[in-house]
């Protein structure tokens, strides 16, 4: 354990240096406002990807409704800041709690489902959340909620991202996390070893949803207007792509996946005709050459350790 803590400290040190460098680039106006905005989006996408990875990658529960939880966090957050003039931190927290609570409520019945049945059920839940928001006139319905104050800045995104990364890393490495991994590898075997599978599945789902809610709050306060259009199932696919591209069950992978997807999208914005075609080809080719994702199960921080653990753990 000592080893890991030392490791954490080193990572934290690097993170702070990285933050200082990037913040310096922003304050010094070296980065144009376009890349500044994309830096925020990368950070938010990392939170989304890593929290989805907890559900999909570590616990092995195939969820396709992540954008729905993001929407819950976003809308709770903007109502609190815009209509009730609450501080940003409260709004983010409330958004996270609301999304997590919803994840908990939804998780209990649906997580009994397996594989593709769970996938379509969660996709459906995401869509139900969106349709419900679309029908609430109080939050602007389909037209979107406008006049949102611009609270999200690089510091908020970076440190919440860091928190999410460390939280999920530590969760995965804890007893609870091990139980989740056991469920992924073989649910029946895990159950017979005394793992309360429902409890840990719901726990992972709730934590994942809560972080998605926080990410939603950050996302909403980046833009002047938020509409239900931003949380379609296509968006959930996008987060899934980030996770799989990076490697299911790798936090480093989720970071890389979020990075790659966001920057491909930003870099291709000027070629509208080919944007999606190139993106599609990139996806297909990547899956050909690295079907296990960029990082597979590996982590940058402790590749040695994880490699030992998973040398025998087959790919599913």
């Amino acid at each position, binding site marked *: 354990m000592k080893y890991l803590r030392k490791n954490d400290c080193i990572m934290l040190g690097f993170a702070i240096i990285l933050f200082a460098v990037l913040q310096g680039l922003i304050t010094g106006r070296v980065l144009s406002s*376009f*890349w500044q905005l994309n830096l925020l989006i990368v950070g938010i996408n990392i939170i989304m990807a890593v929290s989805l990875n907890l559900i999909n990658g570590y616990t092995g529960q195939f969820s396709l409704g992540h954008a729905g939880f993001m929407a819950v966090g976003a809308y709770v957050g903007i109502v609190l800041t815009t209509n009730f003039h609450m501080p940003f931190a409260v709004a983010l927290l409330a958004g996270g709690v609301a999304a997590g609570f919803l994840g908990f409520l939804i998780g209990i019945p649906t997580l009994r489902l397996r594989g593709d049945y769970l996938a379509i059920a969660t996709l459906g839940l995401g869509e139900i959340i969106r349709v419900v928001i679309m029908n609430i006139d109080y939050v602007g319905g*389909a037209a979107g909620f406008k006049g949102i104050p611009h609270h999200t800045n690089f510091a908020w995104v970076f440190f919440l991202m860091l928190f999410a990364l460390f939280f999920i890393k530590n969760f995965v490495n804890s007893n609870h996390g091990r139980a989740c991994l056991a469920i992924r590898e073989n649910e029946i075997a895990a159950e017979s070893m005394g793992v309360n599978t429902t409890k840990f599945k719901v726990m992972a789902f709730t934590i994942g949803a809560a972080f998605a809610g926080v990410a939603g709050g950050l996302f909403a306060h980046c833009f002047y207007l938020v509409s239900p259009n931003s949380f379609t199932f296509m968006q959930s696919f996008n987060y899934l792509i980030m996770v799989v591209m990076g490697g299911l069950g790798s936090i480093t992978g989720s970071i890389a996946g979020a990075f790659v997807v966001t920057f491909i999208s930003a870099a291709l914005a000027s070629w509208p005709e080919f944007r999606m075609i190139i993106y599609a080809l990139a996806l297909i080719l990547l899956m050909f050459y690295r079907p296990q994702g960029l990082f597979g199960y590996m982590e940058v921080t402790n590749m*040695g350790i994880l490699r030992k653990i998973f040398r025998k753990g087959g790919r599913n």
Partner: protein
Amino acid sequence: MNFSKKSLKLMSVLAGTMLMGSVFAGCGDEGNADEIKIGANFERTGNVANYGQATLDGFNLAIKEINEAGGINGKKLKVVEADNKSEASEAVNAATKLISDDKVKVIVGPAVTANVIAESQVATDNKIPVIAPDATSPDVTVENGKVKPFIFRSCFIDPQQGSVMAKFAVNDLKAKTAVIYVDNSSDYSKSLGKVFKEKFEAAGGKVLMEEAFLAKDQDFKAALTKLKTANADVVFVPAYYEEVGKIVKQARELGFTQAFLGTDGWDDSKVADIAGADALNKTYFSTHYSDKDTEVKGFIDAFTKEYGHAPNVFAALGYDAGKMLADAIKRAGSDDPEKIREALEQTKDLKVGTGTITMDKNHNPIKQAVILENKNGDRVMVAKIMPDAE
């Protein structure tokens, strides 16, 4: 300690990517002195790509004509395109890119109201004027009773169209009752539905039922069956052509004999192709011009020549935006965004593709509207409404 080396490596890769990003950003070319850069932020992918594309086609035609005629004050106009994936946050992203990296002087687009509203904040912060070609919601240019200084549009607004159609229903069609069928995923449609209801009831009519569908729906029979039970005098469907064609067709099949009323979203020959001429009889819609108008013939011919099909309303409004912009740059005498903004405000009696426009104090063009009736496959103008000074 090999792990820290590895993490160092990753971090340096990440940092390198970021730096590259900033280098790209830094060397965004400053443009040469002979051209004026204009951003075109449109829906090119995603679910409303067809509207974004049509508007851009019209806009590009206008720019092409201007450049072929020698440009403005000796300078050519250069359009820098960006895609917003039909989504508000991406619209902000694309606008930010156009402003900060491409250094455009003015932005045209997006097509959809929500995307324009999202973009308006970035544009205002950076003092870059925006012309929204098709965004008809009043909120686009006015917020909390105050005009947004940098946001303009080149089309009329929902209240104008909604009230025109409500008055037409009451006065000309002698309608006492109506049902409204709106596109729940479009604020254009919802806001028109609201205005129509207000004005129609103020004029003594009664709205019996309101139903909604979603863009890209194919089958409308369930809701139509329900609407039919109201047996109202008119059916108001403020929506876009693709769905409208199907709605009218399926409604007639279910035995609707009432008049259908619509708005400028109907203005596309596809409505007739989809619904068929017979089903379209007894339908009326408001729009910007009649294609029989000699004034707009030039535009229609030029567009058809360029793209091989007749323009729809989006293309026409995109074209108008291009003409309006060119006129403003010309009068500004420079490519300074602030000067262009001032010139846009002073737009007066400008001849554009679809008529003549004058900018009012809320940055909405004062523009004629016409009501067309579909009659045996033809469109007949039944009324021409000059804007009143209210």
